[in-house]
């Protein structure tokens, strides 16, 4: 199928030295990045002295947008649900809930991840950046403002995920070309059909971020 082809090209092409949320999550093959990330789950288990965690609520600490939040949640709670249901950080959206659409994208330890497919306990010990932490209150990150300027959004439900995916991608690929951007953002989906504005927005954001206005 067409999309699968695109994605596998994206992995093979590796314009970004191993960056791929799909491969990071181990969805499909070629997960070169998986091993390189420390496992938050292992860390959590180690902290628990090798005991099994749960099934009841357990204390966890998440470092989100520079601030530590202590929560008491079940180990099965995903990072997305922890953000949305326990911390009222609702910028990341729940859509497919199966690591396909990217509406839940956040940046975990510098890499874009599908937060619907990361357990909150696994995300401990790493810096979590959500769309709420992308720019100071009342200001827009260059990626967000480029999305506004180029009308790269309609209903806006996919937008925070795309903004985070684009931000993470541009951080690693500041000189990305349009074909590279298309591969880099192929893990996110929009239903309203805002891709035309989005192409321009991400190219424009790349220029602006290089120009020194990077947040």
């Amino acid at each position, binding site marked *: *199928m*067409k*999309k699968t*082809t*695109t994605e596998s090209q994206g992995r093979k092409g590796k314009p970004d030295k191993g960056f791929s949320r799909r491969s990071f999550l181990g969805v499909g093959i070629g997960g070169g990045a998986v091993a390189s990330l420390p496992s938050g789950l292992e860390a959590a288990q180690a902290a628990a002295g090798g005991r099994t965690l749960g099934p009841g609520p357990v204390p966890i600490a998440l470092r989100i947008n520079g601030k530590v939040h202590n929560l008491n949640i079940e180990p*099965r*709670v995903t990072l997305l*649900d922890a953000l*949305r*249901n326990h911390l*009222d950080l*609702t*910028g990341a*959206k*729940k*859509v*497919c*809930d*199966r690591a*396909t*659409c990217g*509406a839940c994208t956040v940046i975990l330890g510098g890499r874009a991840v599908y937060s619907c497919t990361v357990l909150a306990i696994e995300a401990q010990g790493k810096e979590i950046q*959500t*769309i*709420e932490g*992308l*720019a100071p209150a009342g200001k*827009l*990150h260059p*990626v*967000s*403002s480029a*999305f*506004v300027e180029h*009308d790269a*959004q*309609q*209903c*806006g*439900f996919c*937008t*925070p995920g795309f*903004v985070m995916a684009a931000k993470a991608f541009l951080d690693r690929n500041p000189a990305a070309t349009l*074909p590279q951007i*298309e*591969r880099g*953002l*192929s893990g*996110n*989906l*929009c*239903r*309203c*059909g*805002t*891709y*035309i*504005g*989005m*192409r321009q927005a991400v190219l424009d954001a790349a220029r602006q971020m290089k120009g020194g206005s990077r947040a």
Partner: protein
Amino acid sequence: MPSKYDWPVAGKRSLIGKRISRLDGPAKASGAAKYAYDVNRPGMLVAKMLFSPHGHARVSSIDTSAAEKLPGVRAVRVLKAAGTELNYHGVEIAIVVADSEEIAGDGVRKINIKYEVLPHLVKEEDLSKIGNMGKPGQETTVGNPDQAFGQADVVTHEGYYGINTITHCCLEAHGQVAEWNGENCTVWASTQAVGRIGGDMAKVLANDPAFKDVKPASIRVLTDYMGGGFGSKFAPDVWGVECARLSKQTGKPIKLMLDRDQELLAAGMRPSDYAKVKVAAKKDGSVVAWQSESWGTGGPGGGQFPGIPYVFTEIPNKRTRHISVATNTGPGRAWRAPNHPQAAALTMCALEDLAHKLNMNPLDFFLKNVGLSARGDVYRAELLKAAELMDWKTKWHPRGQGGKGHIKQGVGLSIHTWGGRPHDSDCRCIINPDGSVQVQLGSQDLGSGTRTVIAIVAAETLGLPLSGVQVQIGDSNYPPSGASGGSTTVGGVSSSTRRASVKALDKLFEAVASSLGTTADKLVARDGRIVVEGDPAKSLTWKAACAKLGTKTISEIGRQPMKDEGTLADQGVGGVQMSEVEVDTETGIVTMKKSVVVQDCGLVIDLKTAESQVFGAVIMGVCSALYEERIFDQQTGTMLNADMEFYKLSGIGDVGEIVVHMMNIYDQRGVIGLGEPPAISPPAAIANAVTNAIGVRVETIPFTPDKVLAALEKGGRG
């Protein structure tokens, strides 16, 4: 008759028709925008539903006691008691309300239910296998088709075409949060009908003695932002009514949003249509006769006649018959331009095949026949413009000449029409003594730019910058405005906003005229000032003028429709699309290269969001032409791809170049909605482009690689 409400003429517009960024863009792009799904209320419970895993079954027994005993479960409600028939995979059976989403899910799994599985039908394409599930409609005949087909000098083509069912796949699932305060309920809903669903909910609830005092006005609906509807979110739905009921029962706010699988199974689909078509033209290309036997499904309720032949409605001799097929699949709902994409696909593909048989370039063939439509001149101008933008003359080639290697090129076209009569709308324009302005409508912004359009119209009318106007929508307490569907919103809200703003401004003029030594009729508002016309030295800033109101606030209602207050909006448009594709005959993969859209749309309020609407319509069309299909298994009666991994949408790299040309020359007609029309032609135009590329017709949409390869196998690889 000219009216003071008329739109300013082209040279005198400061905001209308410019490229203006959507006002809620920053809130959306920074994650601050709160959708129904994002509403978290103090003490809120979460509900989840049990739905049928079968295509057709009956509930034999249902026991919820284990679920009720689960710690954290607050309520369980059975919607389909033992003995109830379940008509499709995904139909709701019971609801569990719990302290958390996770526990609600546990509760659903604890429900002990047994089913009697019944015979089902989930596939409708093969008429020989639908048993007694088809309901033939009446045959309709115009002219004398038999005689027309029998003439010696006509060329006749017969073909089979089809377009499958697809889902809406709204990214924000259907659902809401409901919260009671005494006898009043607030519902934060993901809806296209803020002003309607509260009343609809109240009517259903009032059948329950516990809710006998609930009135339509008791339920307030709020929709600040909503994550896509596309025609599927007009009703409160079972989950809306039950969310409100259970919220009252538990005394707590409840959030009930559909899970993705149920969203794709039950929350909306576009009906299918298939047709055997016979069509004939004289040797000069003039179409003289059409005959079709069509069928399709809209789920358990069957499917409507799509209205074919489409656009070319004046073909002199016609015979049509439609069979409505009831299937055990999630029910149809309005889907962006209901019936039109299907009708376009069946009609434009048959006509293109006839052009091929006549050895005619389809562009010439369509130009020859657009007189058989209601707006031949519009289509003629649009076809020529589109051909220029596509470079059709260079790119079109006879079939079988798509290129030497395994990558074949092709172009195709389609034309479409849509109504879009402006919906009824009331708008309240408030001018305060401090100079602030509020514009209030019980409307909603689906992402189409409604909020921005309202602000532009009010600011233009009042001579203010956009920042001088606060738009307040998404609340059923505001003056009633229609549901957003069928491209009716922009005409409705822009008309009512214009009238309300003119009326409010008149009141302001009356209040300040004497202080400027003139009469109200000599005043104009521009550039943030109230100015004496012809004597610009005499003026007041907007703020100073409003200060003269003292303690009085101006509040005026504008309405659509209003017979005596000018015609500000219209209905009825035509549009043309051309598609260019590449097809890999080794893999069967179709790649979009370019789409050209030439669309008649009347007066454009915001060119930027209007273009986005068109881009989006084309991209949704690409999704449905190449990727989207509900895949059903006739063995089990279930949908196999109720997820987003295998129910495919296009990604950012899959849509090719899109060129949009608005036919603004019609702007004297006023505002005409743009949501549906450009969403109609893409599947048909892409179908014809694929055929042009590979030389054979792939009969049914979507053009997935397996079907392209099968058509090549059958038709020869040229």
